């Protein structure tokens, strides 16, 4: 039961007896619908969470009037954004202007395909999952660049150019730091990476060796940068570029950008959990006979870890000032990339000398000898 789409497909065929191709299409469509709306809800929830966390950090409260504790704030925002007039500047490149937000959303949401929520629940466990996730999220830069160019606004253009330079550069340290993990597992599949880890901290790749330990921070930093979050939010720097690439966007189209950004927060946090913190792995004594209960515990475990990282992202967002463009590039090319290479070398030597055993395992092994 590797693929829930197949399960659903079998279920449809057994119960309704329709054509195989059609049922495959239906099942994939259903899965897509479920996952996309899940990410939509997550994105909305994150906007609310961000405002509440920001509120508490800034010793205020944050939205608390719509619904209990303001939980329906995102609904109100959603309603409003849908009802807003959809403005397209007169001199904008209209087809590109319309297309850009969708491209952004597609880029982010497609990454969800390879994210395993539990041992069973994953849309598609691709054998190039890591590569796919890293590649497809880069589509965001296309959307941003497109939108910024099409807006026919100098601030947008500056934002878009900054974003392109930034995202493309930070792709390298991110990939390099993930490479350490791939080196250990020897597989690009997300599920394989998770299975290579365990439920307990000492089994996580985060504590595997000093190389992966540092690699996590590099990965997290570059993921933040790819996501245009503070301290790397220069493409939409409010005080510098008004609102950066989305200066000219209003209503629904703006909300797509917004949603993409917050969905991306979820994606990067979950990737961090998958690569370095054991993903959905739960201790043995929690695995029961019942598949459903096991899966639910796994999902809860995964989401809990993810939300911890989401909180860290938000926490960073409301603490740090932003870097300058050239400093950002300096940080990437002069600091992160060399260090990630060093990490890669350390991991490689660990793999070479200890056969992929973790630092702690080696240490314990030495003691017990």
């Amino acid at each position, binding site marked *: 039961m590797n693929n829930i789409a197949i399960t659903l497909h079998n279920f449809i065929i057994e119960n309704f007896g329709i054509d195989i191709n059609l049922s495959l299409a239906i099942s994939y469509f259903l899965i897509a619908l479920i996952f996309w709306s899940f990410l939509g809800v997550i994105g909305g929830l994150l906007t609310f969470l961000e405002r509440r966390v*920001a509120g508490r*950090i*800034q*010793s*205020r409260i944050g939205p608390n009037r719509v619904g209990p504790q303001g939980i329906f704030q995102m609904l109100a925002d959603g309603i409003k954004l849908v009802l807003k007039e959809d403005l397209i500047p007169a001199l904008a490149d209209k087809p590109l202007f319309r297309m850009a937000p969708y491209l952004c959303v597609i880029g982010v949401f497609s990454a969800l395909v390879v994210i395993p929520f539990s041992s069973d629940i994953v849309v598609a466990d691709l054998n190039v999952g890591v590569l796919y996730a890293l590649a497809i999220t880069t589509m965001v830069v296309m959307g941003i660049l497109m939108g910024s160019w099409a807006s026919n606004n*100098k*601030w947008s253009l*500056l934002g878009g150019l*900054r974003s392109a330079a930034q995202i493309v550069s930070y792709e390298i340290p991110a990939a390099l730091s993930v490479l350490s993990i791939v080196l250990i597992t020897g597989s690009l599949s997300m599920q394989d990476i998770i299975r290579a880890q365990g439920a307990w901290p000492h089994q996580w790749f985060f504590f595997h060796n000093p190389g992966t330990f540092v690699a996590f921070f590099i990965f997290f930093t570059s993921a933040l940068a790819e996501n245009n979050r*503070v*301290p790397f*939010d*220069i493409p939409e*720097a*409010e*005080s*510098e*570029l*008004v609102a950066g690439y989305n200066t000219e966007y209003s209503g629904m189209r703006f909300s797509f950008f917004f949603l993409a950004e917050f969905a991306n927060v979820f994606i990067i946090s979950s990737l961090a959990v998958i690569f370095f913190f054991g993903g959905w792995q739960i201790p043995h004594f929690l695995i029961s006979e019942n598949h459903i209960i096991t899966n639910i515990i796994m999902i809860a475990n995964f989401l809990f870890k993810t939300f911890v990282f989401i909180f860290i992202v938000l926490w960073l967002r*409301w*603490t*740090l*000032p*932003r*870097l*300058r*463009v*050239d*400093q950002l590039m300096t940080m990437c090319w002069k600091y992160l990339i060399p260090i990630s290479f060093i990490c890669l070398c350390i991991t490689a030597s660990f793999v070479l000398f200890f056969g992929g055993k973790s630092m702690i395992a080696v240490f314990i092994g030495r003691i017990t000898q």
Partner: protein
Amino acid sequence: MYELEKNNDNTMTLNMGPHHPSTHGVLRFILEMDGEIILSVKPDVGYLHRSIEKIGERVTYPAFMPYTDRVDYVAAANCNVGYALAVEKLMGIETPERAQYLRVIVSELNRIISHLLMTGVLAMDLGAYTPFLHAVREREKINDIFEILCGARLTYNLATIGGMPFDIKETTIRKCLEILEGLKKFLKEFDDLVTNNAIFISRLANIGVIDKETAKAFMLSGPNLRAAGAHWDLRKNETYFLYDRFKFDIAVGSGKAGTLGDSYDRFSVRMKEIETSISILEQAFKSLPSGEVQAKLPKTLKPPKGEVYVRTESARGELGYYIISDGTAKASRIKIRTGSFAAISILDKIGRGLMLSDLVAFMASLDLIAPEIDR
């Protein structure tokens, strides 16, 4: 730092303001840019020119007091007492000692909240929103004090010619001291959050370096001049309001993060000045003399024919009132010389070669306030 080449074919003209989040109100800059690098800055001010100087000729001397609030609404008390001092000097009125102490107290309180706002806004312009709100939180507490003293939060109108319209109570002093204690704790926290932050330092150090000579040539004053290394503080060098009775050091830029006179120095000078103000306040509360707060005045104020230029140290530098009286109840001319107006002219000289993000930081470090420029 960067090769500057005026190549007209490849430059971009960027219009910054009057509505731009980092221009603090309604300034406008026309930037000539080569990519992210600025080739020239043309400030276009006057979007808040409210004809205060003309109104000064149309209303009587006491009625101009509320207008001085609006010259610099962030440090309104400083403007109030400066104007009162100017008219008193013109008329030769002796202000009671307690009133002078009260004036010191309100100007220092106001200097604190003005600098708090500046440091907060600087942090906001660099992308950190939280320190700004923390600064606003502390500001609110001092605003409360002003509310108790004069009944308003922002535009105080808290001086009359010849004295002060209110007296300070023992309970208010106690509350004030409590808030100052809290403020000291807050400043320590602020240091961790902002002042010593690596990103923050790297954004400000070596940016927009103004040396002493340039600063004087461009008529800079106040904290901006002190950050360039000049030991110049009107409170000390040209004592008014019994400032000579207080012990305090002039905060001067040290260049500890980069070059002397860079943006970080201007920031840290203001941080130091908050501490200086706290110590002045504590001394003032300790040695507050008793007595009257208002000198006896004729019913209608008619200064003799003459003119006077009185300058005081406001939060944004030298605040000068140049009053020409023609012997009637209304002034013939009131010119207000402000620190920000002088500072805006230096933007083009220093701004060339900076990046757009640096310009924002540089502007915030100069502490420009639109009404002070435009009046």
